[in-house]
């Protein structure tokens, strides 16, 4: 459809420049959706890996701006695999969109951030404050409510606002909100700019916190199980690589995310508790907890059988780090 005169002359997208070119061995292709957040870091890494290492499938990562758009794209089967917040995937399933969670994207990777100068030291201090969450259907929202219950806070003790993650640091800086709970790198940004401070790491409140998972349309699973297998393996291996080569990973995804490499590097290297890309096998136990909370909040209406939602058949037995070389 598009007239692209510049393809021949101008240098290509930075995203393409770091590639060594398409993997000539690959016979299949798949587009995977993601948002430019570190929870989805393995997606562009897999994209990169599939093109620079030997694999049977070429993975193209497609960046989106928000989850509702991702959902629409998934419903329209424009992407058949994508990273997505887990409760939203449950909601989708509940509404009869045949999606399955085949793998996780990461563990942890979220923090509750409060203003640096504020004297909020614990959950209890948040009483009467305004806190931003990325979406009602985010695990952050669920976990936050669990935490409130733990601290004996009532629903009306905290004022919640839904904000697009990129707007959270600015809102905190301007004093519009007192804190927020969201995935990286939107937490690190506030820290680096000097007005935010970590109140809790996600793993402090919820060990092995999950926010996003790899969601795959059932049609793809039925039609091309091999591709899905390749995808899950690719992500697992990318995760293993990123876990070990954190600085390189930051370097690699910066052009994909079009983000400041410094911020990403800070996220990945400053504090190992921030995020991890191993142990990504989804467990029914974790999901049941999430589901319980969703139903408790009234956001999920019915219990989707978890064995229908989770499909862990594609997870490889042993995961080796992907063989990725990043040129400096």
């Amino acid at each position, binding site marked *: 459809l598009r007239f692209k005169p510049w393809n021949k002359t101008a240098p290509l997208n930075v995203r393409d420049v770091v590639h060594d070119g398409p993997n000539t061995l690959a016979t299949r292709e798949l587009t995977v959706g993601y948002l430019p957040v570190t929870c989805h870091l393995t997606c562009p890494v897999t994209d990169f890996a599939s093109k620079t290492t030997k694999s049977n499938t070429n993975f193209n990562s497609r960046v989106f701006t928000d*989850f*509702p758009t991702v*959902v629409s794209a998934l*419903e*329209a089967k424009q992407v058949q695999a994508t990273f997505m917040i887990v409760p*939203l995937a449950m*909601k*989708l399933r509940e*509404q*009869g*969109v045949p999606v399955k969670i085949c793998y996780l994207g990461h563990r942890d990777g979220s923090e509750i951030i409060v203003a640096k100068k504020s004297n909020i030291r614990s959950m209890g201090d948040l009483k009467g404050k305004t806190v*931003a969450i990325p*979406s*009602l*259907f985010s695990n952050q929202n669920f976990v936050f409510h669990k935490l409130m219950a733990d601290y004996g806070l009532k629903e009306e003790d905290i004022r919640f*606002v*839904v*904000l*697009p993650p*990129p*707007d959270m640091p*600015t*809102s905190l*800086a*301007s*004093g*519009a*909100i007192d804190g927020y709970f969201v995935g990286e790198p939107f937490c690190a940004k506030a820290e680096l700019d000097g007005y935010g401070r970590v109140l809790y790491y996600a793993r402090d409140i919820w060990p092995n916190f999950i926010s996003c998972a790899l969601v795959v349309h059932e049609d793809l699973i039925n039609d091309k199980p091999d591709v899905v297998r390749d995808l899950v393996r690719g992500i697992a291996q990318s995760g293993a690589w990123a876990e070990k080569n954190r600085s390189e990973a930051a370097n690699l995804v910066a052009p994909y995310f079009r983000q400041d490499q410094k911020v990403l590097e800070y996220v990945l290297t400053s504090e190992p508790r921030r995020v991890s890309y191993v142990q990504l096998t989804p467990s029914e136990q974790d999901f049941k907890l999430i589901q319980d909370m969703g139903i408790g909040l009234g*956001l999920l209406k019915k219990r989707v059988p978890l064995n229908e939602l989770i499909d862990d058949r594609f997870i490889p037995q042993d995961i080796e780090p992907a063989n990725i070389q990043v040129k400096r």
Partner: protein
Amino acid sequence: MLAKSAMERRLRPVKEYLFSPFRGIRLFLSTKSQSDLSNSDTASVREISKEKVTSRHSRSNRSRLVLPIIVLLSLVILWSLISFFNLFPSYALPTPLAVLKSFKEELISGRLFNDMIASLWRVAVGFVLSALLGIPLGLWLGQHLRAREAFTPMLNFFRFLSPLAWIPFAILWFHIGDKPAIFLIFMASFFPLVIAIMSAVATIPAIYFRVAYDFKYSSWETITRVTFPAVLPQIITSLRVSYGIAWVVIVAAEMVGCQDGLGYGIWEARNGLRLDAAVCYMIVIGLLGMGIDRLFMQFTKMPNIRWGYER
């Protein structure tokens, strides 16, 4: 959340025009009606007023209403048929029934009403602000050639900036909630308004100023008693256009941490994967937009404005 009395006060005018739908749309963007073959310059007044009366009543109001309703009904029927025969899956196009159901739901919960008030309030404030600043600025620029030349590029530049692009600044400068939404609505409607009023002033027949000079109007009198009434019909038209922009922008404006409003309703519906609710909100937005547009048209009937649409 909003004072009830204020709410009621705001609602009354809306009710008035809800029942006399969509006439006068023909005036949109066109201030002068066509000249016709007969030269009525010399016709006596009795004739003129009689002609006007007849033309006003020459076609029954009812037929004016029937046609649009038929069109709307056939749209709804088409929609029903499409969803009945499942041409699109229901997640791609909610059925009219589902939309109706969610409409009922929102109505009963009182949320829809609350959202309407919230949006109307934001649009009203943003729009009134841009009118309060834009009209005097437009009048001033229209009368000063140099200033006009100096500022039009700037005004034009800002006209092309999407409110979405302003969002980060809106948050930084105005935090979250009503204020940034109002700011975004202001940014979207202010520049087109100033440009339109400025152009309108530049087309005022010079003779009016000449007459004002003859009758020794002071420069303040000239502005308030000549320039302003002379462009009033075009100001109304410009206000309608810029109000239209303000209303369209409500969805973008309510992205920034609003907890209610019709635009927020659409975001929430999308986030909650409720396309039926989204459609319900779209319909409400469209109808309300149309309705308020009709309110503006009431102004064009005021005798000291109407001349601009008659000659």
